[in-house]
């Protein structure tokens, strides 16, 4: 949305609209000495929705966590290969992971509102980042964008944890939007939600796509085919006794779902996996 406000080490002053937000080359992630995913290469286009699909344990979340460097927080995790964000190496020595996360928001599989009021949940990011904004306004617009405003506008003082699961997840999305990120990462955001809430979040993603780059991990094939523009299919391979994840195919969503070039992809999207 505003990569020109990028500060510190993440100086990407030129608002040159790179058509690719992220470019990954030969990315491998290790937990301890075991590789979890190997040799992933892909390009994430700007202002589009990219979906990651694949069987459990193939490393979708692992790759997703590389984009905002939350893998750094896991003891023993190590990243190899190249990952650029607007052309800048995300894992360069002079990059501050904290300021990376200011630009790349994340929504988790399990809703995780803070034990604070709804208002304070949304205002948390702007406050902690010291953003000079009108908080009331930010809270309202963020909640509106997350399609939650009408349900909570009369109880902003109530705890965010008193909401239903679906409302909590939308609150977490609003919380992520409040800091005006450039990219939003979503790790199975609908896995704990009912079909109606899921539908609302999908609609929301389509709307957000105008301004944000979104990467979503999902186990729901229909969801991937409904919302995403690009789809990456990951799979696991047995190397010795290790299960190592790999990127099998990455293409436009129509291609992945209708005319994939790999047999494994076709089997998976048609539900003939394993």
């Amino acid at each position: 949305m505003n990569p020109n406000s990028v500060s510190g080490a993440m100086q990407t002053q030129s608002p040159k609209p790179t058509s690719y937000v992220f470019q990954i080359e030969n990315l491998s992630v290790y937990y301890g000495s075991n590789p979890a995913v190997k040799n992933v290469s892909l390009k994430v286009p700007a202002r589009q929705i990219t979906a990651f699909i694949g069987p459990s344990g193939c490393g979708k979340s692992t790759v997703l966590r590389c984009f905002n460097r939350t893998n750094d927080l896991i003891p023993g995790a190590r990243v190899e290969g190249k990952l650029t964000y607007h052309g800048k190496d995300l894992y360069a020595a002079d990059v501050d992971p904290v300021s990376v996360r200011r630009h790349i928001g994340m929504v988790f599989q399990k809703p995780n509102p803070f034990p604070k009021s709804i208002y304070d949940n949304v205002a948390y990011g702007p406050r902690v980042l010291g953003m000079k904004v009108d908080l009331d306004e930010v809270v309202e617009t963020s909640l509106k964008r997350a399609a939650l405003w009408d349900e909570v506008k009369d109880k902003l003082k109530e705890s965010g944890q008193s909401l239903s699961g679906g409302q909590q997840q939308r609150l977490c999305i609003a919380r992520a939007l409040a800091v005006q990120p450039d990219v939003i990462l979503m790790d199975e955001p609908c896995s704990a939600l009912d079909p109606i809430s899921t539908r609302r979040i999908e609609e929301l993603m389509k709307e957000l796509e105008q301004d944000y780059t979104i990467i979503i991990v999902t186990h729901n094939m229909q969801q991937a085919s409904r919302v995403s523009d690009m789809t990456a299919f990951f799979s696991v391979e047995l190397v010795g006794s290790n299960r190592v994840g790999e990127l099998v195919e990455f293409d436009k969503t129509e291609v992945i779902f209708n005319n994939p070039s790999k047999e494994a992809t076709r089997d998976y999207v048609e539900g003939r996996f394993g």
Partner: protein
Amino acid sequence: MTSAARDFESSQDINIEKKMDSSRILDVGFVRLTLVLSIFAGILLILVILQTTEAALPAIQQFGLEFLVTSRWNPVENIFGVLPQIYGTLMTSLVALVFAVPLGIGTAIFLTEDFAPKWITVPIGFAIELIVAIPSVVLGLWGIFVLIPAVRPIFRAINESMKWFPLFGGPAPRGPSLLIVSLVLSIMICPIIASITRSTFESLPRNLRDGALALGATRWETILTVMIPAGLSGIVSSIMLAMGRALGETMVAAMISGNANRINISLMQPGSTITGLIASQFGEAGRLQVSALMYAGVVLMILTLVVNVLAEIVIRRFQNLEQ
């Protein structure tokens, strides 16, 4: 599903009536047993309070509420008052908390927030739990023979440079003092705060922290703005528990407070606490003096009760805030 097919046509098959089988007897027996035990505990508490008050009655009748504001303890003239001891009890506990709260919370944060690898945090955590097991009389001895000589130069320097400040004033500090008691008390109660706060932090969902970090908060911002508020009720209860322990601690107070029977605002000077007073005097006390000591005991119980009730109110407050 042929033989195992559930055929509920005849209602005998469905068994939901009360039965007196062995597990039920055990169940009922257990409930009654715990009921009896808990009533017994309650009666015991009431008995102790009643009998102490009864024994304190002569002193209560003689001195009334003046007991609380009199700062003389004179067995020869039979004049008794516990103002210095109330001051000493409250001050030592409070000052001990001032040291122990940041130390305990800081330790808990260090042990839970991935600041150091497991092979460092596990032994440290274990050592902290072990401090609780040190008998207070040993800590008292340590206070007399190690801590007092060690901190004397520091105390003197503080006293020297800040004489104008009442809490540090008075003649050059020599040995026992209220501040020494506070220091040893803080060593005793810090592990309580650290271990309860630590388990509070450990019980908080991990994704709470990840949520804050993912928004671009630094590690410290995450701890200060998410983890500590989320664990506040646990932290507050740990502080209250520690405070209770400090108020009631006897051995350390009797050994290193100096047992001075006059009121002394300065923490650098000898003082005394209610517990220390009782422990050091009951042996050779006369009739009215025993009664006065009982009265002091009642005062201590009321003090502890008030602190606990206040604590309960504070905790409720925080819990409401969280919901």
